[in-house]
């Protein structure tokens, strides 16, 4: 079953590469994503067996992240079908700087999209240190052509930045892998699977394990988008097509976060989690503050969303570093809520982009008149992402603040709340500008919104608000079980 989950998207990708007709390709894409979603729901009912000598196991965290990723992928696929069937390929268009560009060939794009899905599911199921590293690296490969969809100069630059910075991050996490192997050299285990490592973690060399953790948190943190290493994130998210940005922000960042979570779990078993937690809290707080200060001067609404991703990943990292069981529950819940909300927001930002043809906030006028439904979704999403009460993010942020106070880290609480207030203020201010500024020229023309482009964004937002009103007991039990075993 695990093999099937990985192979379906990858095989679909290979098939769609060699298919000639566009409609067949879109059909393959939709069937694969539907099958993937069904399979990842089924994993909750039938416990899949491990394969490849225990290298691939679906544990509880893996299942949750896999389901989340698969759901987001399905929603993005619905959006993508409407989007791609209206895009004219191989046609030269002119961008704002007068540079001629065409979109990338559809066969490469769709096959890479499916392979991207496959590599992300590989991250969720891998139980081996090296395997996790390889699969996180593979996500970089697969997503680079997706970012470079519009062949413009700025998207080329964003892709180069993305690949270069993430490659260095991945190289650093390989050094982390080497140190981890060194730390477990004489600990009595030869296998480097997470199950056996966390079992023998007490025998490991603490000093070297700590060094390994630093390399891991810097390396995988580059992909998560923690502050000093986040520079690729805003440009890649802004330049990619909107449904790709929603996947990058909602699913890819989670995959790298899962990597850090698993390493932190090993440190927890080895008894050095207090030391490593401090590093995570520092990086998280720094990310929130960096995002807050960058938001001030932001004129690009997609970059605005990208910086908000940096902020929320920072909050989740802080929660994971606190070391309390309840904090880890809150961290995972926060990740789920953030993914749903952010994916919804990116999808509605795609609608705004295709109506106004600009990413500049100052050029978007009277949004509620032109796009009545999308503007509502956009406003709801912005309120949700800022953590206003009915959304799930409010609940999780409250939980995280509670845990910060329980562990008596008042300084972190002050900095965090300062960052959140700045973010809230500047985001709402910019969004209000989009609604209430007037432009006399094109006031009357109302853009026709497509049904398929609204539904996914609406559904995702609905889930966030449901999670805000009630936390289903089963979900809470499930996540509590995860944080009780922490990781495995």
């Amino acid at each position: 079953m695990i093999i099937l989950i990985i192979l379906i998207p990858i095989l679909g990708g290979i098939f769609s590469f060699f298919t000639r007709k566009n409609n067949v390709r879109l059909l393959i894409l939709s069937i694969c994503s539907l099958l993937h979603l069904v399979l990842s729901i089924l994993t909750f009912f039938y416990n899949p067996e491990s394969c490849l000598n225990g290298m691939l196991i679906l544990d509880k965290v893996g299942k949750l992240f896999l389901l989340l990723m698969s759901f987001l992928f399905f929603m993005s696929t619905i959006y993508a079908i409407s989007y791609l069937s209206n895009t004219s390929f191989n046609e030269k268009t002119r961008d704002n700087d007068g540079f001629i560009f065409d979109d990338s060939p559809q066969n490469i794009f769709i096959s890479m999209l499916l392979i991207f899905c496959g590599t992300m599911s590989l991250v969720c199921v891998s139980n081996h240190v090296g395997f996790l590293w390889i699969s996180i690296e593979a996500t970089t490969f697969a997503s680079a052509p997706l970012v470079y969809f519009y062949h413009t100069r700025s998207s080329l630059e964003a892709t180069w930045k993305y690949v270069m910075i993430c490659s260095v991050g991945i190289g650093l996490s390989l050094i982390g892998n080497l140190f981890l192997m060194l730390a477990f050299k004489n600990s009595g285990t030869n296998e480097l699977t997470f199950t056996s490592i966390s079992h023998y973690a007490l025998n490991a060399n603490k000093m070297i394990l700590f060094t390994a953790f630093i390399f891991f948190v810097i390396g995988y943190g580059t992909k998560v988008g923690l502050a000093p290493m986040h520079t690729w994130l805003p440009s890649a998210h802004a330049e990619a097509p909107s449904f790709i940005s929603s996947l990058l922000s909602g699913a890819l960042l989670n995959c790298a976060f899962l990597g850090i979570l698993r390493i932190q779990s090993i440190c927890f078993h080895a008894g050095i989690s207090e030391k490593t937690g401090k590093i995570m809290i520092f990086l998280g707080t720094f990310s929130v503050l960096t995002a807050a200060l960058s938001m001030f001067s932001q004129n690009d609404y997609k970059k605005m969303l990208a910086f908000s991703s940096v902020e929320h990943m920072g909050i989740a990292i802080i929660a994971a570093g606190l070391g309390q069981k309840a904090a880890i529950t809150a961290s995972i819940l926060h990740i789920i809520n953030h993914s749903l909300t952010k994916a919804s927001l990116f999808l509605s930002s795609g609608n705004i982009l295709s109506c106004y043809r600009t990413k500049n906030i100052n050029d978007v006028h009277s949004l509620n008149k032109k796009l009545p439904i999308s503007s509502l979704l956009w406003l709801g999403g912005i309120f949700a992402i800022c953590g206003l009460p009915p959304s799930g993010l409010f609940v999780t942020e409250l939980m995280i603040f509670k845990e910060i106070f329980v562990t008596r880290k008042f300084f972190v609480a002050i900095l965090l709340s300062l960052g959140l207030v700045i973010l809230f203020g500047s985001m709402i201010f910019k969004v209000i500008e989009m609604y209430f500024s007037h432009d006399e020229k094109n006031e009357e023309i109302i853009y026709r919104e497509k049904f398929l482009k609204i539904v996914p964004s609406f559904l995702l937002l609905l889930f966030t608000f449901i999670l805000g009103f009630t936390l289903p007991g089963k979900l809470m039990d499930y996540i509590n079980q995860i944080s009780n075993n922490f990781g495995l």
Partner: protein
Amino acid sequence: MNNWFILIFTIISIMNFLLLASSRISGCINILALQGGIISLISILNATNLWGILTFVFIFSIKALIFPLTLKHALRLTNTRREIEPIIGFSTSCIFGVLILVFSYWLSNKISYHFGDVLKLKLTFSIFTIFTGLFIIISRTKAITQVIGYIIFENGIYLLGNTFLIKENIIVELGIVLDLLVFVLISGIVIFRINKTFDHINASLLMKDDQKGVS
């Protein structure tokens, strides 16, 4: 045996200084090829069976032949000869190189206080190579030089893996996956003719001149 290893590690470190100091990119690529060839000698020193010799052939062909040749091809395509405006100048880079060496000696002492002297020396040189690569990535502006920096960084990781004497095959297997990334970067240069990387203000300089603004 250990003497040979120390000789190899020392030669690689001297090459790092050459790479930091040279402004001609094709010269850089030549040194890189030589460095790759010397690094592949490590695997033949470690070799005990046929698998070891195969590893040597594999690493030699990638690091000493394929990378340099494709980089030279990319150099011809993008029409670059020299690194003209490095962010940090070449003589300053050399001074930074000395500082990095001192820093990596301090760091390896810190990490490996209970290791032997030989291991400490090896660790110093491999950390030095890693940081040299990272330094070249951040201090140069041409895309090709950044890739060269990345390859040096990767060589350093390979040396580090050998220092720890972890099972050879794991390093080789993981190293191959890292090599794939280098291929992606080089092919990016070859296909899209990326010449110069700049910050986002100056994105127009990314493309070759003749592709700019064709109507």
